[in-house]
Every structure is written in C-alpha cells, then in structure tokens.
C-alpha cells in the first residue's frame, strides 16, 4: 500500500488542546474512604452512599475481563484521580457566572453554551472532567414536565426516581467496569420524560476530559414513561496526553409502554498518536430495558476515537412487541483497537431487533464486532436481523466478526449477514481512471459504506459524523 493511503488517515486531532483551569482534585487512589469522600463532596443522601459502597465491595471481588480481542498494558487503579472539578464548582443558575475559560472550551469544541449562541433546538448538558458545569434549556424543558439535569442534581432533587431506577438495568455487579463506575461515578446526565410527552427538543450531553490523570466515570439514566418519546445525543473529546486515561461509563435506559428512546453517540476521545502512545481507554456499559409493551430503544453510535474501545450497547426486550435497534460505525486507525457490538436479549413475544454494524479499519488497527442475539423460550415470534460489514483500508488492518446466536424458541426468525471488503490502491485507481479525484473518491466510499447508519443520526449530527470520518480517514487510502 502506497504511502498516500496512510497519510490520508493521519489528520491531526483538532480537539487535543488543554484548558488551563484551576481544579479541585482528590488524591490519587481508590479505597473505601475515597468512595465516602466522593459521596460526601456531592452531598449525597444515605442511599447513594450505600449503593456506592455495595458496588465498591463487589468490585474488589471481581477480576478484570480479558476475553475481548484487545491488548493493553495493565491499568493501575491506584494511579487514577477519581474526582476532579473546576474550582468554582458550584453550579451557576446563569451561564454568565460560569468561568469564561470553560465557556470558551466548549465553544472551541463547537458547542456554544451562552444564551446568544447556543443551538436553538438542542438542549446541552456540559460535563467537564467529573462534574456537569451547565445545562441549557433546563427551565424550558421543565415546562413540558421533562427533567434534564446532571445526575448529581437528580440524586438530590428526584431521589425517589433515582433510587427506583439506578442500577435496575445494569446491576452494580454486572461487570468489572460497571461495578467500578457504580462505586465512584462523579457525574452524568439524568433525563425523565413523563407520560405522554414527546420531548420538544434534542437532548445532548457533551463530555470533556481535561486533566491528564483523571478517570471519567460518568453515569447516565434516562427514563421514558408510557407513551413518551426522546432523542438524546452524547459527544466526547479529550486533550492529547501521552498517558492513557480511563473512561468507564454506565448508561441505563428504561422505556415503559409505547415509549421510544433514541440514543446516539459520537465518540471522538483522543485516540493516541500514530505509534499508539496515549489515548483514552473507553470501557463502557450501555443497556436499555424495553420494559413496557410496544416500547422501542434505538442505539446509534459513531465510534472514531479512543485508544481502546470496549462497548456493547444492548437492549433487553421484555415488553411484548418491543423493538431494539443498534446502528454502529466504528472507525479505527493507527494502533487503535475497538471491540464493539451489541446484545439483543429477546424475552417478550413478537420482539424485534435490528443490528447494522459497519467497521472500518485502517493503519495497524484492529476492529472487532462482537454481538449476541439471544431468543428466550417465551419469545414467540421474535425476529432479529443482523448485518455486519467490515471494510479494510490498507494491508495491515484487521477486522473480526464474532456473532453469537442463541435461539430457544423455534418460532423465532434470526438472520445474520456479514461481509468484508477492502479499499485499496486498485479501487481508488478505478475511480480516478473515471476522472474522480482521490479526496472525492475516499469520501464517496466512506459515506456510501456508512450511510445506513448515518441515516439514523439526528440531522445536524449526521453531517458532522460524515465530515468527521472523512477527516479521520483522509490520507488513509491511495
């Protein structure tokens, strides 16, 4: 593969700057005292401290998983700061009081928060290291009964909802990283859509890791009551450091009868340099529970960043006729490793799920799809359709597909399709021989390959995602 293929992919990471801002950090390391300290700093009620301690004790008994197709040096959990917040950390009622350096940071990230500039149809919760610094449109949303705030605020203001649903979809002991998250999570978003309400705007959380030695442990909880509807999007970036930062998030979604939750992610954490130095370790547990009849949860993800990604957003389809969807584009380049996919667990009757996964691997990266489709004994009439396509760019990238299918009901219909293709010099030459320039050729191929997934993203972000991929891949081909 000629050098130009590689140069196209290797665009500089444009979100790699560090904001110089004074922070309050607790010392590195993790023990029961640290867990208590985090809870105390957040002035949490008793039930939260219990939740955290239970999770911490569980975590101590667990071993880090090693089954995913990933290779990374051992993580020293005592060398991580578990809580870091900008100094003037009291949450301001007016954005005018927020530290201008923070506002500027988010503006640089393309996410203006101030009243004049903010996006008109998207409410944003901005999370900086361990805390939420601002949530726009909170009051407007509340008029519709929609609660959109940081999870810290929710713990204080809606304790009964939090207590009822937190950990109900992802139990504290679900896996090693979810237990760790439950013990030390610092912030994240909380969404509550009351019965019969269609959320009037897109909700969005923007996560920013700023400190070099801080782990980000965010926790998101979205509850959609009967007949409600919401579309939520998260975005993630981090500065370039030559050390690795740990991001271990947990996201729980609950959809009650006829509720519809659409959850989109554009993940662009720092991926490390071309030699694999630095970058985020992104170990995430995301799961949605379609609890009510006819409910629907749809995951869409565009994963382009992180040194290592380990992520399987899933749906537990309990309600009869409920629907789970997973649309994913995962791009890896240089030394990135991604092991991502989904779990669709069919419990109720006539439950349906769709999985569309597109993996693009360039450089020396490795990109694996790992998915589970499980049809339980009572899931009469359940249906699943899975399609996993991989595209290799250059000669040194790897793509793997690991579909696991378990069917315990004979009336179910499960379809799986997989393909692997390659973009190389010859494909490009073919397009160029027809008069198309190399840049156009690459972007045609990438957006064509990903269009089934991009079509699922909210409009504003679909264009962004398309651009993001072209940017990331420029120079990878040719």
């Amino acid at each position: 593969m000629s050098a130009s293929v590689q140069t196209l992919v290797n665009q500089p990471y444009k979100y790699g700057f560090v904001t110089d801002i004074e922070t309050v950090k607790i010392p590195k390391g993790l023990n029961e005292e640290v867990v208590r300290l985090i809870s105390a700093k957040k002035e949490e009620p008793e039930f939260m401290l219990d939740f955290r301690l239970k999770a911490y004790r569980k975590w101590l008994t667990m071993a880090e998983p090693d089954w995913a197709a990933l290779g990374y040096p051992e993580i020293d959990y005592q060398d991580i700061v578990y809580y870091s917040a900008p100094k003037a950390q009291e949450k301001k009622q007016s954005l005018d009081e927020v530290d201008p350096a923070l506002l500027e940071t988010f503006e640089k990230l393309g996410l203006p928060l101030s009243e004049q500039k903010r996006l008109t149809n998207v409410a944003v919760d901005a999370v900086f290291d361990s805390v939420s610094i601002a949530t726009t449109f909170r009051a407007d949303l509340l008029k519709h009964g929609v609660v959109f705030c940081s999870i810290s605020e929710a713990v204080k203001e809606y304790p009964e909802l939090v207590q009822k649903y937190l950990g109900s979809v992802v139990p504290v002991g679900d896996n090693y990283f979810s237990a760790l998250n439950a013990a030390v999570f610092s912030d994240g978003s909380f969404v509550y859509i009351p019965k019969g309400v269609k959320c009037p705007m897109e909700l969005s959380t923007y996560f920013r890791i700023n400190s070099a030695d801080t782990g980000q442990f965010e926790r998101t909880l979205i509850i959609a009551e009967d007949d409600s509807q919401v579309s939520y999007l998260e975005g993630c970036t981090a500065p370039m450091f030559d050390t690795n930062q740990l991001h271990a998030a947990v996201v729980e979604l609950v959809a009650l009868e006829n509720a519809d939750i659409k959850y989109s992610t554009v993940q662009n954490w720092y991926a490390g340099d071309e030699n694999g130095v630095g970058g985020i370790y992104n170990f995430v547990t995301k799961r949605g529970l379609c609890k009510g009849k006819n409910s629907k949860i749809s995951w869409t993800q565009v994963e382009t960043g992180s040194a290592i990604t380990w992520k399987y957003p899933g749906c537990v389809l309990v309600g009869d006729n409920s629907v789970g969807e997973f649309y994913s584009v995962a791009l890896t380049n240089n030394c990135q490793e991604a092991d991502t996919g989904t779990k669709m667990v069919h419990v109720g009757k006539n439950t349906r799920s769709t999985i569309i996964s597109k993996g693009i691997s360039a450089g020396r990266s490795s990109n694996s799809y790992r998915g589970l489709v499980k049809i339980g004994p009572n899931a009469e009439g359940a249906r699943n359709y899975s399609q996993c396509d991989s595209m290799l760019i250059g000669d040194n990238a790897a793509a793997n597909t690991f579909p696991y299918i378990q069917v315990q009901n004979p009336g179910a219909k499960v379809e799986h399709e997989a393909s692997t293709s390659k973009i190389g010099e010859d494909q490009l030459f073919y397009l160029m021989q027809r008069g198309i320039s190399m840049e156009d050729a690459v972007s045609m191929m990438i957006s064509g390959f990903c269009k089934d997934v991009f079509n699922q993203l909210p409009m504003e972000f679909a264009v962004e995602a398309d651009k993001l991929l072209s940017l990331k891949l420029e120079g990878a081909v040719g």
Partner: protein
Amino acid sequence: METVNLTSNSLSPEMQSNSDRVEKQSPAEKRAACLQQLLEISKTDGVAALSELQAHAAALASELAIPSTRDEDWRFTDLSKIVAAQFVAADGKASVSTDAIAGFVLPEARSSRIVFVDGVYNPELSDLSAADNVTVGNSDALATVSKHVAQLPGSEEVFTTLNTATFADVAVVHVAKKAIAETPLHLLFVSTGSNRISQPRCMVVAEASSQVSLIEDYVSLGSAQGGDGSGFSNAVTEIVVEANAQVEHSLIQREAMGSFHIGKTSVIQAQDSRYTNIAVQIGAALSRHNVETHHQGTQVETNLYGLALVAGEQLADTHSNIQYNHPHCQSDQLYKAIATDKGRSVFSGRVGVPKLAQQTSAAQLNRNLLLSNKARVDTKPQLEIIADDVKCSHGATVSQLEDDQVFYLQSRGIDRDSAQHLLIEAFAAEILLKLPVASLRETLTATVTQRTESAI
C-alpha cells in the same frame, strides 16, 4: 430392536434366514457389506473403452463402506434406510414406451432430447434432430472426451467410486470450440422402479468459447406405466468447462417418493469460464446432491442455485463446494428449501479461498421456509478463507410464513389459502425463474403448490 429383515443386505433368501450371522454384524460391518452388495448387483459389462478405469474403481470400492452420520459429510443425513433396503440389478432391458415418458418431454427441447433408462441409452425414446452445434450421444460417442471420465476432483468419494466401477453407459455432451448450442439439451434419466439400482453417468465437455444449456432430469415411471415408486439412482455427472466457455446446467430430481437418489456434479472451470447450476430437488424419500467446482484459471465465475422441497418424511441434502485457486474469480450461491410435514432439509456450503486467490468474491445465502413445526432444517456454511483481499458474505435464514404478509394480502381481498400459496410460490420462484425453459418452470411451480397443500 433391529430385525433380521431390516439389517440383511443380501439378496439371497438363504442368507436372510441366517439370523445368527447377520445379528453379529456391527453397524460398520453392515455398512461395508451393504456397499459390497451394491457393487455386486450393479456390476455390468461396463464401457469397453473405459474397462481399466472401471476395474480400478471396483478395486477401490471393495475397500469402502456406506458412510455413517459420524462422517462429517453425512452428519445430518442418515443412510441406514439404504443399508436396510433391498435393491436389485437394473438390467437396462425394461421396456419403456414413448407414451410412458410423454409427460416428461419438454416442448422447448422436444428434438434435442437423449433418454437413458436405468442408466442405459434408449435410442427409440431419444430425438436429437434439433440438437445443433453439439455432439450428444452415449458411450459410443466418448471419443476424445473419454480422457476426462473419473478424472475430476472428488472422484474418490464412495458413491462416485461405486458409480465409476459399475456404470453401463455414459451420456456424452461435447461442444466444440466456439460452438454455440442454441437449443437446450434435455438429458432425461428414467428410473423404472421395482427396487432397481441404476448408475447414470454423464460426461460434458465444453471447449473454449463455446456455450451450452443442459437440463439433466431424473424421473421415475408413474404407476400407470408400471413404476412402483421405489428404486435407487446413484448418478454422477462430470463437466469440463474450458476457457471462456459458458455452461448453464439445470438439474431436476423429481423421482418417485419411495426412491433414493444420490447425485454428484463435479465441475472444473478454466480461465474466463462461467458455470451456472440450478438444482431442483423435489423427489425421492432421501436425496443428496453433491456439487463441487474447482477453478483452474483466473476470472472464473460460478453460480450455484438450488431449491429443495421436502414433504411427508422426505429428506433432501445439498452439499456444495467451491474451491478457488486463482485470483479474480467470483461465485454466487443461493440455496432455498421449503420443508413441510416431517420433511428435513440439509444444506452445507463450503467455500475454500486459499492465499493465492486474492481479489475474489464469494456470496452464499441459504434461505429456508418451514411450513410445519415437525419439519426440520440443518444448515452449515463453511467458509475457509485464507486470502485477505476478498469479499465474502454468507447468510442463513430459517423462517415461517409471515403472518403480517398473509394478513396484508388478506386485507387486499385475497383469501387466506391463496395468500399462503402466493407467498410459497414467490419463495420458490426466485430459483424456478432461473430455469431456461418455461414448461419446466410451470410444471415445477404447480408441483410446489400441490405438495405444500397440506401445510395450508
């Protein structure tokens, strides 16, 4: 619980009563004995020009046995009914009238038809007056193509070896360089029943830049014509597709419901050639189709399509195997099965792409329609891909008729039964429409409709 009668492989009544001896046979011994017996009763004078080859195969066959389900290639298909059955030699002398086969004649190939009865050429029933640009005949026409017989990969397989050792005649199709045979050729193989075992054999050579369409058709005489619905056809067809040649090969197996059919299609393809196989398996109590093609040059194209229909207690098994050896080749496979009653369908599709077969593509799809809870489908894709610059896809589906679709048609005023028939026909049509002649498409569509009646 096995009884003497079920396990005896002998024709002789004396042996049948010799229960001591038979009961002591292990299953493996029975399977070996069965094959030896099939070899014994099938023995013919053979084809003089190939006597050495046939003798060699007979020697090999004497070491072989009927495979068991422990054999990975036969994991889903239990041959113990063949081991248990009683067959007699097909002497090739059964008289069959023109009327008896009238129902099988294809108007589109009325005068490009060659007929074999229990594996032996029958000139009276054949009519080759319109077969253009092609040499068609029996073993008398072997001439230059004889060098290919039993030389294709897979010829050492047990049933193929049995056939090679015992065939009495060979159907020969030879298309000369650049010749274009415009009229489809109908190769009609008639089984007369009465527990006869026959060894139909076919050798096809399409020389460079030639083109031909073959319809290989296995039928049994109906009861009105003296057929009793039993019998065993062990058929082998070898096809050599030379450079830039095009062979379209339809294979229809519509033998009687009490019979056994084991068929082999072995193909080698030279550079720039295209081979298309459209296999329809609807007959026989137990049938197996092995189709394999080996690429011997670049830019080879292979298309394998199939439809199996199993009702009652039928079992239909298809094993396909495409072996790539060169860059820039492509294959497409679509196998469909409809299973109703207690029918069983088996599909195994192997695709081998070694390192040197770069820039190839292989697509394989297996779709199954289950019309009853007692029907069963086993599907096993085997992709062995070592080359890294390839495009390979595979898919398998097993489903029932969709209530939503039936309901949709009902809501447009179509009654439930008709709606179900429509959907089943549509499922089958994707394969049947690929057949080159309209009369076969219509006949087979009608058969599908009639045979799935019980499921509706």
